[in-house]
């Protein structure tokens, strides 16, 4: 009778049996004199692009966050004024909370849908390639197309959802105008995002599922672990690396959620779906307040970094 914990055994098998030999001189595997400069040369294009299009603009944004600037005329240094305004900006605080709500709803939705699809396809014997392609297809669509499709589904005049509501004899309430109702708009937009990227998450989880050794399941079968118990005690823990990747990707993407909200609701109704990113856009391009917009961007970046790094730290701590 097998009495070992298969989870512990599986994770043990993933750890290298012995650490790499340490060098007595404390240096890396190659000495400095033998460093192959070709690699550095090959990195030049990437470094140029990184500095020019990411690092440079990021530092510039940080600089502009201390200015009053309309985006065209010369900026005026304003010290900490924008940051002081940010601390008392209720609208930005609400937008941050809405962003967190979006990120949470979409995260849960994407993980659940992606994992569900992956489990389904992992067990299926026929048509898996076609099903994978079908489920992944929305991730290949541009956000504008997705917004067009879901905008039609939700459209209160000619949409599918109001038509379904009418068919069910529901002539009033949120179902007749999901995007125009403060309590349902956030769920409606989240649904569109989940639909778009569930297939992407499915691929991540499928890879994770394929990497779980069959021996573990065989051992579990012998132990009588089946169904939900088998999923909860074996599959879910062994999917931790995949889950961690999926959570990171989802959080990093949705904490700066912009396009779907912008296209579907424009932040409405009455600001109910305004995310930090849509507010930043509005502050800059609609209100011509680029200085304060940069301040809002810095705050959002800091929040995103703290949450994503925190999540990674938490995940690595759990796995260790």
């Amino acid at each position, binding site marked *: 009778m097998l009495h070992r914990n298969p989870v512990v055994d599986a994770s043990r098998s993933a750890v290298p049996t012995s650490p790499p030999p340490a060098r007595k001189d404390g240096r890396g595997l190659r000495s400095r004199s033998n460093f192959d400069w*070709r690699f550095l*040369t*090959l990195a*030049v*294009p990437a470094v*140029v*692009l990184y500095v*020019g299009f990411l690092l440079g603009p990021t530092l510039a944004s940080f600089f502009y966050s201390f200015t*009053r600037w*309309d*985006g*065209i*005329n010369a900026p005026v240094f304003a010290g900490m*004024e924008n940051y002081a305004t940010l601390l008392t900006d209720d609208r930005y605080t609400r937008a941050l909370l809405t962003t967190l709500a979006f990120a949470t709803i979409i995260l849960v939705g994407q993980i659940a849908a992606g994992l569900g699809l992956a489990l389904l396809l992992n067990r299926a014997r026929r048509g898996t390639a076609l099903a994978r392609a079908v489920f992944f297809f929305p991730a290949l669509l541009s956000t504008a197309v997705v917004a067009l499709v879901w905008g039609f589904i*939700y*459209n*209160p*005049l000619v949409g599918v959802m*109001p038509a379904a509501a009418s068919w069910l004899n529901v002539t*009033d309430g949120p179902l*007749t*105008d*999901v*995007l*125009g*109702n*403060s309590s349902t*708009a956030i769920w409606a937009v989240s649904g569109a995002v989940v639909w778009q990227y569930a297939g992407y998450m499915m691929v991540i989880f499928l890879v994770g599922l394929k990497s779980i050794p069959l021996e573990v399941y065989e051992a579990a079968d012998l132990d009588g672990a089946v169904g939900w118990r088998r999923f909860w005690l074996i599959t879910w823990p062994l999917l931790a690396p995949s889950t961690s990747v999926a959570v990171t990707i989802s959080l990093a993407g949705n904490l700066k959620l912009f396009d779907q909200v912008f296209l579907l*609701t*424009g*932040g*409405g*109704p*009455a*600001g109910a779906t305004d995310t930090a990113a849509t507010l930043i*856009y*509005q502050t*800059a*391009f*609609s*209100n*011509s*307040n680029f*200085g*304060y917009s940069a301040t809002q961007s810095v705050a959002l970046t800091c929040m995103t970094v703290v949450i994503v790094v925190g999540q990674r730290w938490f995940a690595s701590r759990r796995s260790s």
Partner: protein
Amino acid sequence: MNARHSRTVAACAVAAVLSLGAAGCGASPAGESNVTAAQDVTLHVLGYAFDKTPGIFDAFTEATGIKVTLEQVQSDQLPSVLQSRVSAKTDLDLINLRGGAEFNKYAEAGTFTNISDAGFLANVSAGAVENGKFDGKSYGYSISADTVGVFYNTELFDSLGIKVPTNWDEFMAANATIRDHADGVAPLVASAGESWSNQYYYHNAVATFAQENPQFMADLKSGDATWADNTLLLRQFERFQGLAESDSFLTGSQSLKYSDAQAAFAGGKAAMWVMGSWGLGGLTPAGFTPGAFALPINDAGEPPAVASSLSDKIVGVTSWSSHPEEALQLLEWMTSEEFGNALQEGQGVKSTVAGISAPYSEFQADWDGLFPDAIPFPANLAPTVNGEGPAVIGGILNGTLSPADAVARFDELQATDNKLGY
């Protein structure tokens, strides 16, 4: 040279080419344009006002041999596109942008060529020229004039015995009659899904108050007045709240876009639509004649309200144009009757060119009646109030904002703009 060195050299060459390519991404094509021969000039026009007339400059090309490339941008994307293109001073010769805060910002930054001495400005209306002035100098002019009012279904009004409302009580009574007697037709349709379209419920209240109190906008800017001092605005917000609470709006008005609302009105789903005269463009009513009247922001016994007009759709030549003479030639041609007629016919908007004969819509009669008395909307409305202000109507519409809070919100936005010195 051995294989290893060959690979090293090849890698360096590829890296250098890619680096140069990346560095060249931001380079301005101005130098190239300078070399362009004068006899093969192509002018680049960026704008948002020619979505239904993409070939409007063909006649200019035929007459002068100067080619024109039109880059039509969606109205809601114009601010970001304009920002990047002007910042980079890309290959643009003529820009079409909105009046008021947007035009002022770019004019202040020296975006446009000074045309104060241009004789062709006499070809367009005085209001159009005024819209293109900044700091006392002319940098452009409006190509079209727009008036804001209420579209209505004349056949439905007649069949229900409703007369054109001349005060707010009559307007509400008309709403009630439509709601109670026009089967399946909502009194009004709004398009709060695009918040800019909300502002036309208070547009003539702001314009009227500014005209009656000429110092008000300047006092707002200096902090000597607040939006709470604009009694017409608060009253209009209260009236709008009454409208929202009286179930007058078509279901979905909270999320509909401009084009949805236009289609709903044209399709007979709503009896009225508060919008500007540009709504005539592309309007295809299903078996009825749309009329128009000014939104009655007056109570019974008060003088009748008049419509408001917009300083919109300005054109100007960029100060860095590679072909300034040809660009000015195009700007002059745009004050010709040929262009004015083509714009009216194709775009469905009223041209500012004098002596135009072409109709801008088969339903223009009522709008023509509103134009002469229309009060210009203040062009110096600050950008944040202009940009975010319309969203407060959405708050009143869904019951999350009281009229008093909406006015207070206006004052918050104004304070932001004042701090920035707009």
